[in-house]
């Protein structure tokens, strides 16, 4: 039974992380219909920025709490900056181009960013400091649920609630929903679509960076290539839930996280990534609209 609960928690933790990344995918897809292939790299850059800032600050002797807060802030700020720069350079000139062009551009961006970090930093795995201290409160259950697991669940829940409120009630959130529904119409009603798209990238990237920081302190090491697999899995989650739908992305992430956790726990850990990919292939074949998505019809 303990094993089951352990797997359950590890699945939920995975799911929460996937959700933080999948939200960026789904928001961008909802608004400009682009699979932002470089999103996984944004997450990786967030984790790296957090690592660098945390290392420098802790060498300067700041208390752990301040280090954690500043590292998270820096990760979010820089990831957001990268996100909107990428949009400006690689996607905006391609609006109105054939569908495949921005996708190829995004793949190029993803390869570029991976190798940029590889060359600027290192190809080795970097140990990531445990930024989240163990709570003595959780001592009795330490075998099944760690403090980082709990922190990941709490932080991601809070972030998701804030995001939902932002999208539902803020002016910008309304503009985002309007743009997602019909970009031309939104433009006609005086919404600055360029700004909306930039904000979408900023928000999505910041979420991914928070995810990067959390998972890095959970796993304890990062390198330049972590974005690829994480990106594909988060994309799987977004598609599973119905791409373009925000609750769908969260639901899909938890389904994927739990599936992976139980499959690796009870079947085989060698094929961890195969489960996710197979799930992706199966959904796309049998239910391309996803769990909560609406089926779309191409009209002439």
């Amino acid at each position: 039974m303990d094993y089951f609960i352990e797997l359950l928690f590890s699945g939920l933790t995975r799911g929460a992380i996937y959700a933080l990344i999948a939200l960026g995918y789904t928001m961008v897809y909802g608004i400009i219909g682009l699979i932002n292939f470089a999103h996984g790299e944004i997450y990786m850059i967030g984790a790296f920025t957090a690592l660098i800032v945390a290392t420098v600050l802790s060498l300067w002797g700041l208390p752990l709490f301040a280090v954690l807060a500043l590292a998270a802030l820096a990760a979010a700020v820089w990831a957001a900056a990268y996100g909107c720069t990428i949009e400006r350079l690689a996607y905006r000139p391609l609006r109105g181009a054939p569908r495949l062009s921005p996708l190829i551009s995004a793949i190029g961006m993803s390869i570029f960013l991976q190798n940029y970090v590889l060359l600027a930093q290192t190809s080795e795995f970097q140990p990531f400091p445990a930024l989240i201290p163990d709570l003595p409160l959780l001592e009795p259950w330490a075998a099944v649920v760690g403090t980082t697991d709990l922190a990941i669940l709490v932080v991601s829940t809070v972030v998701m609630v804030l995001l939902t409120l932002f999208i539902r009630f803020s002016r910008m959130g309304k503009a985002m929903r309007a743009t997602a529904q019909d970009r031309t119409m939104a433009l006609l009603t005086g919404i600055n679509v360029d700004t909306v798209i930039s904000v979408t990238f900023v928000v999505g990237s910041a979420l991914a960076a928070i995810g990067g920081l959390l998972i890095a302190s959970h796993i304890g090491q990062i390198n330049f290539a972590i974005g690829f697999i994480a990106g594909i899995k988060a994309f799987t989650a977004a598609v599973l839930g119905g791409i373009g739908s925000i609750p769908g992305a969260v639901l899909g992430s938890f389904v994927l996280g739990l599936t992976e956790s139980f499959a690796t726990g009870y079947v085989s850990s060698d094929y961890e990534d195969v489960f996710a990919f197979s799930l992706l292939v199966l959904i796309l074949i049998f239910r391309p609209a996803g769990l909560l998505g609406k089926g779309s019809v191409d009209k002439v």
Partner: protein
Amino acid sequence: MAVITPKDLRNAAGVALWFMFLTFPLLVVKINTVARTVEWRWQNLLWVGVAGFVASLVSRLFAARKLARQERIRQGLERQLPAAGRRLLGHPRLRLAAEVVLALFLLAFPTLFSTYQVNILTTALMYVVLGLGLNIVVGLAGLLDLGYVAFYAVGAYTYALLNLHFGLGFWTVLPIGGLLGALFGILLGFPVLRLRGDYLAIVTLGFGEIIRLVLENWSDFSRGPSGIANIPRPGLFGLDLTLDAAIVYLYFLTLAMVLFTVFVVNRLQHSRIGRAWIALREDEIACQAMGIDKTRTKLAAFALGATWAGMAGVFFAAKTTFVNPASFTFLESAIILCIVVLGGMGSIVGVIVAALILILLPEYLRAFADYRMLVFGAVLVAMMVFRPQGLVTGVRRTYTPGR
């Protein structure tokens, strides 16, 4: 004539500052997590600033010039000329002369240069075959296949395994590799071809990774990450070839393979199915309305592309005499895609030129070898933004009535 205004300078300075900010943590700070030391590389900040400033100014100048030129063309002051390369190629005698010189050069290559150079050129030629194969799928039919390397792996492992267990030779396995590639292409294509373009890309990517992961983990079947060694090179009527001779022989075989591929792709391009592919790429709905069987046409593109990857895989296994899953990562697919995109989707000459550039340049510019993938990524983005038609634009056959 465009001049640099103070506004341009201010903008360029802004761009430079933004990129200095952007690259600050990753390019300037270098941490050593083991020794817990920090190295500050301020000179990088300077480089980024200068590069950002210059790049911004240059791109502004170019944009202004292009705009001015379009304006002149619109007013009828200047005529739009076809690209220089196309004008030269269009000249029949020049073209023939160029082809003869090229053919002689390729035939004499092994006598002129060392075995090492021959080996490199063989690799480049294999990428030409792969590029042309993927060109059928991506360039002609417009299906973005990110898992192309999976079929390449199928071909390579077909040769490795059939040789290991049954002792089959290169020539027997070559068609089998192609067929198995096609079979896998159809197996994958059948369920996924109903998907829209971008989903298809991701599913093929997933498929490519699944094949690689299975090869890595199913040790009883594929010997896992350690791979299969001692695969024989192709033989010549049972003659005992020295290593050098075998390499030269393989070079000529690859060259023949390239010629065969060019011939087939060229014929396919203008055939009924080739025109159906192009129609499908341009507008799927209109194409269906014209009575083209969408699924069958797509499936044919997938299967044919995969056939070429399968055969190239057999060549690869014969050339390196060793296969392991690490040769078939997503990056390999990305390199092949980069060849097709750089060359110009649907253009045979373009793909050949791009394959030679992308494979040979990094070989000879060893000093910059680390930057290879960085440049590939940048090339993909830049080509899409500035020149989506590629280096060489594919020419479409036109019908002129009464000719």
